[in-house]
């Protein structure tokens, strides 16, 4: 008896993507559930690439803020689409890294030949948020449920107090280990790296200007399906000015802070999905390949005992991935660094440029390098687009894949040259998910 031979690794193609416009919390999608938004986004992708009735390898998606009844969110959403009901699905959560992590999981199965095609996605709503019953009330209800006699149940229920109804459990945007909100953590990072308020406001302004310009040239027309009256992200402020940003007050640290509502991402509702496949599957269906997902890496930092910055994990993940890929930081045509906060992006760049930090913390021989800012987040970033936690990864993968495909088409691109894009996403719990997309021009 011999062990069966393992398949060779295949290239993973990004065929296309779809998202709904992202909406500021409690605005256009206030009444929409995660399931509504995810099902609609999946259906948009199915329509665009004519996947009706097809049985796919799998559909993977997730949501960071989730109702307990949505234990099978992705499968339930899938059943509301015209995909074959025989398509399996599962949910994944890795905080803000969810969207990119789902793409990596689907890609890995395609690469190993376990499936030929799959959809990765994510959705989040902070409008239709779960509200839990008061913790003491929950314990009383469970005790009553355990009671074997009416007397026992009545005794348990007699402990209920009206005040418990007024103190429900709300989802928090905070780190359970430190009790600090993510913004407070990012304030500490901004101080650690001496990131000025002016630099943060400038980055935020550029994010809005670039996203606005992308809409002006119709960039998102084949990346988006209008939803509930929105055909653009409603956080975008095309007429934003530096003076308006400068007038905002610090929100996480009123006495010595620099993070404001303008240079931090707002709570957002939205969903995104990406279609990934083997080259053979795409060719057989007559679908184009926009780019390939070639490398990925996840990292986590100790933000508690060692007090590394909460959102610094991508800083560690990228050099590890570059080493595996045999690439340097400057060898990319595009950089997509998720703008959780303008300060997070600027801390990331500052850390890669810091010789001592790269040697002592990242174990490199010197500074990782600096990137050409003109190649970063060229179609706008999360500050202008919004950040529905689990949906951001899919948005970035879809946008970057199209950017690589377009760049390859332009006559200025040298033939035979590989176009590359780097994705870096920070996540709660001190985590980071990064990936490389690339595209080789045919001779």
């Amino acid at each position, binding site marked *: 008896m011999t062990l069966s031979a393992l398949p060779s690794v295949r290239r993973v193609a990004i065929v296309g993507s779809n998202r709904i416009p992202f909406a500021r919390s409690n605005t256009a999608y206030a009444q929409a559930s995660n399931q509504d938004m995810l099902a609609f986004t999946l259906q948009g992708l199915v329509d665009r690439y004519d996947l009706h009735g097809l049985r796919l390898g799998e559909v993977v998606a997730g949501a960071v803020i989730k109702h307990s009844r949505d234990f099978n969110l992705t499968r339930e959403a899938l059943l509301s689409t015209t995909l074959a009901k025989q398509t399996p699905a599962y949910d994944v959560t890795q905080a803000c890294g969810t969207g990119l992590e789902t793409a990596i999981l689907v890609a890995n199965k395609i690469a190993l030949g376990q499936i030929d095609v799959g959809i990765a996605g994510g959705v989040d709503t902070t409008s239709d948020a779960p509200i839990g019953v008061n913790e003491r009330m929950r314990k009383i209800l469970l005790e009553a449920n355990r009671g074997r006699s009416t007397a026992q149940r009545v005794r348990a229920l007699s402990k209920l107090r009206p005040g418990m109804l007024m103190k429900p459990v709300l989802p928090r945007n905070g780190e359970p280990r430190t009790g600090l909100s993510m913004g407070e953590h990012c304030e500490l990072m901004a101080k650690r790296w001496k990131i000025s308020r002016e630099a943060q406001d400038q980055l935020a302004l550029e994010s809005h200007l670039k996203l606005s310009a992308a809409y002006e040239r119709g960039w998102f027309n084949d990346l988006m399906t209008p939803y509930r009256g929105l055909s653009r992200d409603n956080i975008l402020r095309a007429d934003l000015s530096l003076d308006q940003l400068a007038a905002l007050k610090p929100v996480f640290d009123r*006495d*010595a802070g620099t993070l404001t509502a303008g240079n931090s991402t707002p709570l957002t509702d939205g969903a995104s999905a990406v279609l990934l496949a083997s080259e053979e599957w795409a060719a057989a269906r007559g679908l184009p390949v926009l780019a390939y997902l070639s490398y990925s890496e996840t990292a986590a930092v100790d933000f508690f005992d060692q007090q590394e910055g909460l959102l610094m994990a991508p800083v560690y993940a990228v050099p590890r991935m570059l080493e595996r890929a045999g690439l340097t930081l400057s060898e990319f045509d595009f950089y997509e660094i998720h703008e959780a906060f303008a300060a997070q992006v600027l801390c990331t760049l500052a850390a890669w440029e810091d010789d001592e930090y790269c040697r002592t913390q990242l174990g490199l021989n010197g500074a990782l390098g600096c990137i050409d800012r003109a190649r970063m987040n060229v179609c706008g970033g999360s500050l202008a687009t919004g950040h529905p936690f689990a949906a951001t990864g899919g948005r970035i993968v879809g946008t970057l894949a199209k950017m690589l495909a377009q760049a390859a088409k332009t006559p200025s691109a040298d033939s035979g040259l590989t176009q590359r894009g780097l994705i870096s996403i920070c996540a709660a719990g001190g985590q980071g998910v990064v990936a490389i997309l690339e595209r080789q021009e045919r001779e």
Partner: protein
Amino acid sequence: MSASPLSAPRARTVIVETLPPPAKLYGRALRGLFKRGLAHELPLLRLVRPSVMLDPQQIGRYARVCGFIPEQGVPMTFPHVMAFPLHLMLLTDPAFPWSAAGLVHISNTVHLRRALQSRQTLRIEVESGALIAHDTGQAFTLHTRIYRGGEAVWDADSIYLKRGVASRGVASTTLDPVDTLVREARWQLPAQLGRDYAQASGDFNPIHLHALSAKAFGFPRAIAHGMWTLGRTLAALQPSKQLAAAHVHGDFKAPIFLPGDATLWSGASSARVRDFEIRDLAGEKPHLRGRFDWEIA
């Protein structure tokens, strides 16, 4: 004509085991409003807190309001907060010639000689110093010296001014403006900054707390604590590392009204020295001018 050190009068030393409650000290300050006609000299007095712990919680509150981060270690200006009750006791001592309420803090020098760590126990001494001539009144120095296990680790000279009285003594030197400073940042100072810093520092001087209480002392609005402004500046200029030793001198100029904007200007004459100014939003009027030099562990 100068007396030998041996024949100089010795300061009376008072050991302060437990601090009087702040309300009592401020009560003394208010009663001091009716002081007049006392001798035009400072009582020779040394107040000592023999054993005070660097309290991590208090450090955390202080660091946060000034913008220091944990990587910077114990903020260099934090020991001033520990010594401040002794300043207030000395300034409200029955033998002290003027009311503490009208005094203006016009400059402060801090010398960190050894790195400090949270939870260490320190001995704090505050002593009245020399009279200093000044254009608008009588200035004088309070010396603060801090020891750890007998070793001098931190000391500071705080110069206060009693306005509107004839002055004696030798004038102190102030820093000349440096004209190569570069604007680094704009700060937005919120209305409650004075109250936040008062909570963290224990300096509840009414001129910092509210526009109404500030008006009672002749200010149109509440003004920022000078030591907050100095602390905030050091937090911004200090590298994100612990200091092994450092020296800072700051001259307080025009008050910063709250709420308001200020700008940080600085220039490096060498890698471990920074000249700095805090100015108004337009960058014209100075609020604080100083020089900071340091050594990293």
